[in-house]
Every structure is written in C-alpha cells, then in structure tokens.
C-alpha cells in the first residue's frame, strides 16, 4: 500500500479513483481496510487538501466532530448530534466528511456475509438477527443508517459542495437497488469539500441508544424549525438518513418483527423534538 498527501483538492481528486481511496480521520476507513471490507492500493490522505474549520454557516469537510460540538456558531441540533456521537477520541479524530460517508454497522455486512448490500442475493438480517435494523426503506437491505450527523444535516437543510458539484443531503444518499448497491452518490474520485448549514430558528437532536454514551443511534431524531415549518429527519431507522414529512408519517413505517419497538421510540422522540423547537 502507498500513501500520498496532496495539498490541494484538485490534486487529491486527480489522485483518487482506480484503487485509491481518500483517508481523512481514518476512524472508519482503517478498520474497514484491516478487515478487507475496503481494498486500496493507495491511500490519499486528504487532511491538507480539504478545508477544515467553521466560518458562519460554512463548514469545511475536514472539520472534526469535536470542533463542531464546541463551536457556538453551529446550530444546536448539530452540536448535540456531534456531542452524542461516538466517543471523545473518535470525535477528535473523525471528520464530518467521513462521517457522512460511513458504511453501515449491520453485523452481517461487517462480518462479510454475502448479503444484498455486498452484492448478494438476500438480506441476512431480515430473516436473521435484526434488532438494530430499519423500520423504513427496508425491503431489500434492512440496515439502519448510523450517522447522527447526516440525519441532522438533513433536517437542517444543509447543502454540500464537492470537487464536482453542489448537492443537497437527499441528493447524497440513495437506497440500494438491484443494479447498484451503493447507498451514496459520491463518485470514487469525488471529494466533499464544504458544507453549508443554514441557521434555523430552533433545532434539536434527540437520541435513543443502548447505553448512555458511545453507541450508534437506535433512533435519532433531528428537528429544525424555521418560521412555522418544522423539518424532521431520523437516524438509525432506514438504510439512509430518513426525512419525515410529518409525525404521522411514522404510521407508514414497515418495521420487521424485531424493530417494531423503534417505531414506538420514534413517536415519542419526534413528539418531544417538535415540542422542544416549537
């Protein structure tokens, strides 16, 4: 394996693709490489190539979760999401760009079962052990999106700038399909450079998890209010961050036998989040 350290986004983007993978904080990528779930001939360390820091509503993709957690310019919901995510060390290492592109924590996927998301025929979780899994969008792959941050950015209406385009959070994610099992639309040679996170009048992030810190979201609810409209998005409930048009949309959930409890939790957290921002 090789390591390169380009100093500009252009150089980094040029080095990416065909066996090269971007390495930011490495909290996600290094374990994946070690377990053979990602293969790379060259690692492109993007620390010097991608913007880092916060300027008004703009956030460099290289900004760490710890930096976001601490900055008063950042909307409440995002600060809360960061502060409830992962562990202190992971937050000082992990970047927001990497966080948005983290892979599922589905145990079958992580243990390399030949499941649907890995390109196989069926979802092992649906018939198997799936208490951590999805209640929406789960017909093919029932994984639950692990990012507190992504759901929060979805509720906040954030946009992203990459080396190739500008896009919204919904544009970044896709449900896997038979001909394409990816859950993001990022190209192998595309880098996220910056995010723009508009300031709502009020926002909050509520998270249910198996322990009080240092756990992925069982259900995470982000709510952001601008004027009379409250935007809601959920983490841990679908293979991608899930926008909820209204609290009643929870009636449309398609839980598995082992995930029905998540609907009940989501109802409460949605109600509480709406109350908190109203």
């Amino acid at each position, binding site marked *: 394996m090789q390591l390169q350290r380009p100093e500009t986004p252009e150089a980094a983007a040029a080095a990416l693709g065909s066996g090269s993978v971007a390495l930011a904080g490495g*909290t996600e990528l290094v374990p994946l490489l070690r377990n053979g779930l990602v293969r790379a001939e060259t690692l492109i360390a993007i620390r010097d190539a991608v913007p880092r820091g916060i300027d008004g509503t703009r956030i460099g993709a290289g900004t760490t979760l710890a930096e976001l957690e601490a900055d008063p310019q950042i909307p409440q919901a995002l600060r809360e999401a960061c*502060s409830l995510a992962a562990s*202190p*060390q992971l937050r000082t290492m992990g970047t927001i760009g990497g966080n948005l592109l983290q892979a599922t924590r589905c145990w079958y996927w992580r243990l390399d079962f030949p499941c649907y998301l890995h390109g196989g025929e069926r979802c092992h979780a649906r018939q198997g052990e799936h208490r951590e899994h999805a209640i929406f969008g789960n017909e093919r792959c029932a994984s639950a999106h692990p990012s507190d941050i992504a759901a929060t950015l979805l509720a906040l209406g954030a946009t992203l700038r990459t080396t190739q385009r500008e896009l919204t959070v919904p544009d970044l994610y896709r449900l896997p399909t038979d001909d394409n099992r990816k859950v993001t639309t990022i190209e192998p040679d595309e880098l996220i450079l910056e995010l723009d996170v508009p300031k709502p009048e009020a926002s909050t992030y509520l998270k249910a998890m198996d322990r009080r810190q240092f756990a992925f979201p069982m259900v995470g609810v982000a709510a952001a209010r601008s004027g009379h409209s409250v935007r809601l998005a959920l983490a841990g409930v679908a293979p991608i961050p899930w926008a909820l048009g209204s609290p009643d949309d929870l009636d449309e959930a398609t839980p598995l036998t082992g995930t029905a409890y998540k609907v009940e939790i989501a109802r409460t957290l949605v109600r509480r989040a709406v109350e908190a921002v109203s």
Partner: protein
Amino acid sequence: MVELVVNGGSHTLEAPVGRSLAETLRDGLGLTGTKIGCNEGHCGACTVLVDGVPTLSCITLVHTVEGRNVTTIEGLRDHPLVDSFVRADALQCGFCTPGQIVSASALVEANPEPTREQIRHGMAGNLCRCGAYPKIEEAIATWQG
C-alpha cells in the same frame, strides 16, 4: 521510513504503509505502556495524544502522524493524575489505566475543574471492564490534590 516525534524525542523507523501507531509504539519503540484492547477503535485502551489531542493509536496509521507530536503514557509519568488515580484507587487490573490517564490529561488540560458531567462525557471513550469508573471520576475530580 517514518519519522516520529514521541514524548519529545525523534525516531526514524522502518514501517510499511498500513502499520498502526499503536503497533509502532509498542513493538518498534518498546513503549508498551500504550495498551491494545480491541485494535479497532472501540475501547480507548490505546489512547495517546497527537499534538495534544486524544487519539486512538490502534486505528491511526503511523505514516499519518509523521512530524506531529505524539505523547504516550511514558511521557505523562509524572503527571499529577498518576498520583490521583492511585490515591483514589481508580484502577483495578490497570490494563485500561494508561489510556484513561492519557484521556484525562487532555480533559484537565482543556478544563482544569471539570464537572462530574463533563468527566462522564469526556471519558466515555475509555472502557474499563473492571468497572473502576466511580473512582476514575473521583480521581479526575480531585486531580489537583
């Protein structure tokens, strides 16, 4: 070849890309105070400081910290936290303890008088299977003696 600055001293070592900082510290430099509990970012036993920031050395590739300042428990041996941990009996088997002290050193550096809540928040990434937590909290709350 990588050049490392560890506890103030420079070292030049042979290491393939992919080698972790933890492995390099322990096997390459004999700094075995840094422990490996999980080797995948889940426990905090391997915590070191990189430019003063708590970092999991097991999932940090050694090449990515070239030229940055790495501080291990061996560089914190005279930190007052060592005494406060012993005084409060904040360790049992002691295997997680170096990692706890490294994390705690960054916590008290940023905030010399952390509240109980801040300690619980700032130390949540250091698992202790022996359950020394109440006394770890106590040790950090009373680190200044």
